[in-house]
């Protein structure tokens, strides 16, 4: 009897530990980022860092303005969302409501495969195919642009958007649909007047998680967006994102100088933005569940 109690005690504590482990890790990561990143603000002001237009980190004195990268990340993300969200939601509706069961299974497994392709592979394929395509279609000097990155990232966000939206659509109570049809609504009317309202919080959450995926993506972006440090004025220009900046320069940054700290500060910016994206997604997911 005593042994059993002791066993339960240990198991309970173990589960508790694993439960809070991820929380502890997140907190530790944030503390580490803060500790390393905040030092950069000893040499330049927050405004100068976030709003500075020039990035020459290894010059003396260095220019450490990350505005071009914030705008670059924004441009790539917005472009990807404009492409991926409508496409993803339409696909989710097709799979959940319209496709015959056999086709549905095939589609779902294909989408899962899409999610499993490593981003560096997608980036490589994009570089070989998409970049020359974008260049010739728009007649621009180079195809390494924010827009190419957007298309590529839209593909990466699609599996997330589709599978979560599809779940949201499936969880709309059956009575809603039956009620609508009983009142004489056509299938299409039921879809876009009734079901979409029931599934909306889930769909918004799916889109936000898609945004998070796009925003944090690094490898593929670094390969095909061109990485220019100028302030972008349009989608058809080379841009560099926040993530690509860290990935490209962390290897070289000498520990303890302002360049190194600036890269960590970019990490803080990324962390905060991702946190807000996920937080918003969670809010909508929770609202969907309460209904």
């Amino acid at each position, binding site marked *: 009897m005593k042994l059993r109690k002791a066993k339960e005690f240990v198991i309970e504590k173990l589960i508790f530990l694993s439960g809070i482990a991820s929380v502890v890790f997140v907190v530790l990561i944030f503390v580490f980022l803060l500790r390393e990143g905040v030092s950069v603000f000893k040499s330049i002001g927050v405004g100068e860092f976030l709003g500075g237009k020039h990035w020459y980190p290894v010059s003396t004195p260095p220019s450490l303005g990350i505005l071009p990268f914030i705008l670059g990340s924004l441009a790539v993300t917005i472009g990807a969302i404009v492409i991926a969200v409508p496409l993803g939601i339409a696909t989710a509706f097709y799979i959940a409501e319209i496709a015959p069961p056999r086709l549905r299974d095939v589609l779902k497994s294909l989408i899962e495969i899409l999610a499993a392709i490593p981003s560096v592979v997608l980036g490589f394929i994009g570089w070989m195919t998409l970049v020359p395509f974008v260049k010739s279609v728009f007649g621009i*000097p180079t195809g390494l642009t924010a827009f190419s990155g957007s298309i590529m990232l839209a593909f990466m966000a699609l599996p997330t958007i589709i599978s979560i939206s599809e779940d949201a659509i499936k969880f709309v109570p059956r009575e809603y649909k039956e009620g609508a049809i009983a009142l004489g609504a056509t299938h299409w009317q039921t879809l876009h007047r009734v079901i979409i309202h029931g599934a909306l919080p889930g769909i918004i959450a799916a889109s936000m998680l898609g945004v998070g995926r796009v925003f944090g993506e690094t490898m593929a972006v670094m390969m095909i967006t061109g990485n*220019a440090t100028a302030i972008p004025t349009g989608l058809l220009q080379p841009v560099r994102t926040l993530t690509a900046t860290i990935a*490209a*320069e962390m290897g*070289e940054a*000498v520990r303890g100088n302002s360049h190194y700290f600036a890269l960590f500060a970019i990490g803080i910016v990324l962390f905060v933005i991702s946190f807000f994206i996920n937080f918003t997604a969670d809010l909508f997911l929770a609202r969907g569940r309460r209904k």
Partner: protein
Amino acid sequence: MVNLMAAWAENFNKHRRDVNVAVTGGGSGTGLTALISGACDIAQSSRAMDEKELKQAQAKGIKPNEEFVAMDGIVVVVHPKNPVKNLTMGQLRQIFMGNVRNWKALGGKNKPIVILSREFNSGTHIFFKEHVLRRGNAKGREEFSARSLLMPSSQAIAYEVAHNENAIGYYGMGYISPRQKVIAVAKDSTSPHLEPTVENVRSTAYPISRPLYLYTNGEPQGIVKEFIDFVYSKEGQEIVKETDFVPVK
């Protein structure tokens, strides 16, 4: 440059089966940083260590020892269909700083110039900046145009130049291939335009040539010394030639 080191390591391994040489790329800055933090035995660099790095090494108790093992010419390349084939150092400077933006101004077609550069950590990037943009004055303030595309590798530059008629880029001699056209460079408007051939680089007549170094912590000893000796040996210098760099011995 990482190609050369990889070839040395591979051939060294044929003599010493029991020794495994691990080679990692990433640029001269990466290598020197690793040496300073004690993460590697040998750092390959296409530039001499700067004062800042020397100070950091001193603070960590590392005594950098420099070995001059090969030479490299930085090649400026354009798409094979680009009619421009000769440029002066002054023109290169104007192009890469973003002051000349159309090929027409250089005797080419009426097309925008797409500048390809390497990342900030690349020894090639730093060498090109100091040598071409800053005309040899390391303390100069000239920078690459912010519109230049920072490519992750020389291979990426080679690929983009081969596929984009508007592009101009630079890389080490080892990457020369018929898919890009090599530009002949003149020191100034009165000098002859020279191609980066082995003779021109070794005699430093070609204006953009550079030394390649290996750095060790203190005088090389034991297996590190064996490796350095191999690099200087006839076989080692033959490998330099095979990978399209220029031998020093």
